[in-house]
């Protein structure tokens, strides 16, 4: 126990930042429309998924291009445990996390034992997520291509995590889960485990020469990562009250998950949250720009796909101009001015 206390001591600065971030994010529902709240909720769900991705790909350096696998397993576990076994989504979230972690351990063990790295590991994760999608698409037990609809509980129901009357509650509960996950990530970065992951990311040979078992570090990373991302997936089901194979396992889910930490800053604590904030603001701005353009841009009104073009352009510019994401860009500037 004293070790945990020492970790907390070492993390005090980050925990204070966390308190501030959570406070600011917690205020959002107070002054926005129901629509904006749902945008914020979605942003937070993908931030959470990105926090999970970041553990494996940012800290441990194993780039996953198929985190939809974990997201989808979480999403479907919540849906199936509720509709088939009447189990509360609270339990479903945890079970989903455990299943995703187990899936990560199994597939990770095989991939890492066989020495998959870099682009090959990325493609393997992609293939796994696609295989899950195709399998679920043909599995009648989980509704095949049609998916699963969650029955409405009606009103505010804590046990079912449905808050029809007070949607802000749904956001705040999610924020709580995000906060807990961030505390876990902060603790990891301050602990031996985090240091081990970073070492393996940087140089496996050097890491093993210092007594680190690279396989074990990667296995720890993939299970924690899968668990957190599955929580996000499970909550996504609760938020949509519906899930289908594309929403759960689609390739664009994987992209959506990794985009946020990369824009915010790969391998940083705050990158996923920052990236999610930036992307959702950006997404809303471009969408509303296309919906109601200023008079001199009248031609673009309602043109389908234009917001995505803008989005792609910004993505390309960010990758070229700020390859370490926004936080990395700031850090680099600070270092430059310090020298």
């Amino acid at each position, binding site marked *: 126990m004293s070790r945990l206390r020492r970790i907390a001591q070492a993390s005090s600065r980050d925990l204070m930042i966390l308190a501030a971030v959570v406070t600011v994010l917690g205020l959002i529902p107070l002054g926005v429309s129901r629509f904006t709240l749902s945008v914020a909720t979605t942003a937070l769900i993908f931030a959470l998924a990105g926090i999970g991705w970041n553990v494996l790909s940012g800290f441990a350096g194993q780039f996953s291009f198929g985190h939809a696998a974990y997201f989808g397993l979480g999403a479907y576990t919540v849906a199936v445990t509720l509709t088939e076994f009447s189990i509360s989504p609270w339990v479903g979230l945890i079970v989903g996390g455990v299943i995703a972690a187990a899936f990560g351990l199994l597939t990770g063990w095989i991939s890492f034992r066989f020495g998959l790295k870099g682009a090959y590991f990325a493609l393997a994760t992609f293939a796994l997520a696609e295989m899950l999608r195709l399998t679920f698409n043909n599995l009648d037990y989980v509704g095949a291509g049609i998916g699963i609809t969650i029955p409405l509980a009606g009103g505010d129901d804590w046990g079912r995590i449905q808050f029809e009357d007070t949607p802000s509650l749904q956001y705040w509960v999610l924020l709580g889960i995000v906060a807990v996950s961030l505390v876990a990530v902060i603790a990891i970065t301050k602990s031996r485990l985090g240091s081990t992951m970073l070492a393996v990311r940087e140089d496996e*040979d*050097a*890491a093993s020469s*210092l007594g680190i078992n*690279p396989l074990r570090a990667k296995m720890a990373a993939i299970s924690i990562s899968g668990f957190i991302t599955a929580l996000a997936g499970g909550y996504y089901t609760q938020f949509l009250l519906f899930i289908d194979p594309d929403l759960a396992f689609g390739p664009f889910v994987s992209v959506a998950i990794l985009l946020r930490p990369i824009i915010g800053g790969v391998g940083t604590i705050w990158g996923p949250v920052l990236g999610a904030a930036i992307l959702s603001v950006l997404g809303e701005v471009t969408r509303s720009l296309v919906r109601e353009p200023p008079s001199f841009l009248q031609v673009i009104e309602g043109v389908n796909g234009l917001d995505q073009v803008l989005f792609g352009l910004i993505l390309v510019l960010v990758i070229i101009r700020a390859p370490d994401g926004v936080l990395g860009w700031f850090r680099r500037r600070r270092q430059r001015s310090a020298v």
Partner: protein
Amino acid sequence: MSSILSVRNATKRFGGLTAVDNVSLELGQGEILGIIGPNGAGKTTLFNLISGAMRPDEGEVVFDGERIERMPPHLIAGRGLVRTFQVVKPFSGLTVFENVMVGAFLRRPDPLESEAHALSMLEFTGLIPSADRPAKGLTLASRKRLELARALATDPRVLLLDEVLAGLTPTEGAEMVEVVKSIRDGGVSLLVIEHVMAAIMALSDRIAVIHHGELLAIGKPAQIAKDPRVVEAYLGEEFQIAPD
């Protein structure tokens, strides 16, 4: 003098090339054993065999009474036998301090304890001023120190140093020699590969000469310097006596 590390009849082949050929060595407790030999003699390969990076085709390696030649590197390091790399491998995305923390964590799960330990290792190697710099921007001399600090932070009982002096200026080299000496004074046994003759002669208790993978001679520095076989081997190989 009881030996803490023994290499017995170790052989390693790469295709037709025998990089290490039936080499046997004993490293005494608290000893500095220098290993010299021309480029390509098989010195680094010998380190790879001892540290678990490669498995010998024949022979055995015994560390503190235990056979280790089939163990993975991390278990060997965990038992207290740690090596540095000739081509240094800093964790370039991390700061100098974080680099050393990786080593410090091996025996100290408590982050505050390992922080304190890492800081004292940085102090010992004179790296405190660059503690918060990214490892990627360091000079070669500092990177070699970092490699050493990181390995030392794991509290090794045996340390294998692969050419820590190569490429350093005479002043930097002299500082490094002092550091290595005080590591030994701290109770660590050392196996030191070195190209720079003068330095290794002054530093080592004994010296082993490797040539074409074979152990050519082993003994006190003074004997080695006079050994006709050694002199002959080096004259043929344009061995550098002075630092480069």
